[in-house]
């Protein structure tokens, strides 16, 4: 599955621990099930040897973890970053959210991560999962062993991968890739072509499933405020009883709006959503609008970039023009 082997990552981590470059390692370890790979901090070579995991379920983006982790000691933290994670890493550095001196970033190439829900569509009795070359072998309770091509199981954000190129690292393992010409805005464009009633129906269906667990906020590398507007008991979104779906609309509009120009489209929000709401479609709408109205902008691609929402031009489009702009293509 992943081109680069677990042993290479482990050896790199052990070497850097041994020569004192870093004193802890941010990596992935096994969860309760094979597909529940979870972020963890490793302090010794033994822990790494025993628990470190690197496979098609290492989707977690570690950039946000650095905000808290770099405050915990004087030593450096080793962090493994996939190409898409490096954009968030750059964006957080641009916002001065952590100390670059306390991080040793190792870039790892990525062939895309697996979406377990696509496996669960094939079978509902997953026992364990192995990766064998280009195939994912699923051992099940009732359906025997299934061998599925990994390519067909990739999560949406990996199918529409925006970049296989690392934009920040101290050291790179393996080969660096290129920025991809992905069709990630196709789905947004499809929605824009619908009538307002169809769009309302679509989003009503999606957003009314929201259980306000706040997982999308908690995982988002752009959401790093210590005091969040959604934690304010005076705010109109804190109250949980869902009388109708206003609260979810409010929450998701504001959540997406707060990361405008800072969202790197890493897709973590959709990955963690327990209700499978396509939250990335809200973020991508803003990114697409910014690209079309204020010029192409990819958050995190360049360190120190100024986001379009905190900038202006004298001849910007009027809000009415911005809204009516799509009509001629409809």
């Amino acid at each position, binding site marked *: 599955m992943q081109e680069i082997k677990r042993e290479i990552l482990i050896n790199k981590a052990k070497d850097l621990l041994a020569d004192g470059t870093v004193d802890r390692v941010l990596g992935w370890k096994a969860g309760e099930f094979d597909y529940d790979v979870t972020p963890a901090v490793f302090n010794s070579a033994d822990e790494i040897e025993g628990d470190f995991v690197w496979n098609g379920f290492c989707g977690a983006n570690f950039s946000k973890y650095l905000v808290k982790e770099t405050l915990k000691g004087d030593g450096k933290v080793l962090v493994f970053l996939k190409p898409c994670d490096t954009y968030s890493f750059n964006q957080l550095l641009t916002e001065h959210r952590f100390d670059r001196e306390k991080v040793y970033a190792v870039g790892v190439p990525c062939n895309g991560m697996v979406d377990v829900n696509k496996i669960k569509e094939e079978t509902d009795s997953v026992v364990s999962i192995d990766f064998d070359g280009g195939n994912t072998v699923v051992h099940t309770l009732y359906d025997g062993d299934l061998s599925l091509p990994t390519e067909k199981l990739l999560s949406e954000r990996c199918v529409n991968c925006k970049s296989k190129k690392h934009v920040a690292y101290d050291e790179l393992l393996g080969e660096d890739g290129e920025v991809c010409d992905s069709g990630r805005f196709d789905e947004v464009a499809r*929605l*824009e072509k619908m009538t*307002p*009633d*169809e*769009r*309302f*129906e*679509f*989003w*009503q269906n999606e957003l009314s499933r929201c259980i306000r667990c706040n997982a999308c906020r908690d995982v988002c590398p752009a959401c790093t405020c210590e005091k969040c*507007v959604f934690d304010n008991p005076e705010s*109109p979104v804190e109250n949980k*009883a869902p*009388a*109708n779906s*206003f*609260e979810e*609309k*409010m929450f998701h*509009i*504001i959540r*997406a*709006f707060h990361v*405008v120009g800072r969202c790197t489209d890493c897709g973590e929000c959709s990955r963690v959503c327990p209700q499978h709401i396509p939250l990335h479609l*809200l973020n991508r*709408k*803003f990114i697409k*609008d*910014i690209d079309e*109205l*204020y010029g192409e902008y990819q958050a995190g691609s360049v360190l120190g970039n100024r986001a*379009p*929402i*905190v*900038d*202006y*031009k*004298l001849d*910007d*489009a*009027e*809000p*009415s*023009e*911005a*809204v*009516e*702009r799509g009509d001629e293509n409809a």
Partner: protein
Amino acid sequence: MQVNEYKPLIVAFCCNWCSYAGADLAGNNRLNYPADVKIIRVPCSCRVNPMFILRAFQRGADGVILCGCHPGDCHYTSGNYYTRRRMSLLFSMLDYLGIERERTRVEWVSAAEGAKFAATMNDFVEKVTALGENKRLEDLRCKK
């Protein structure tokens, strides 16, 4: 016989330096605009957080209009330029979610444009009245 004619509730955020004075001028000139418009004075149009707009809808507004100084004339030099970008993105998002686009509007009204203020409000109220009650961004808990 009682006639239950539908009257929309319109919230107008007006900047202190231009549009609020424009509303004053409309009054002084005895220009008519519907009493359904409730004006909220803000120091600058860029004071308006996207949350204010959603919250106005939640609390029963049928339309929200934001008025500020003409671009280039902001009392604070550049506030309304930021408003313009923010509201372009927010209104485009509301449209994407299927909320009627006639319910939101940004209009630049100077302190000398009393007539424009009255005309804008008349037009906006007429459009929102035609749409009827705000159903897509209502909160049942806030209904009287």
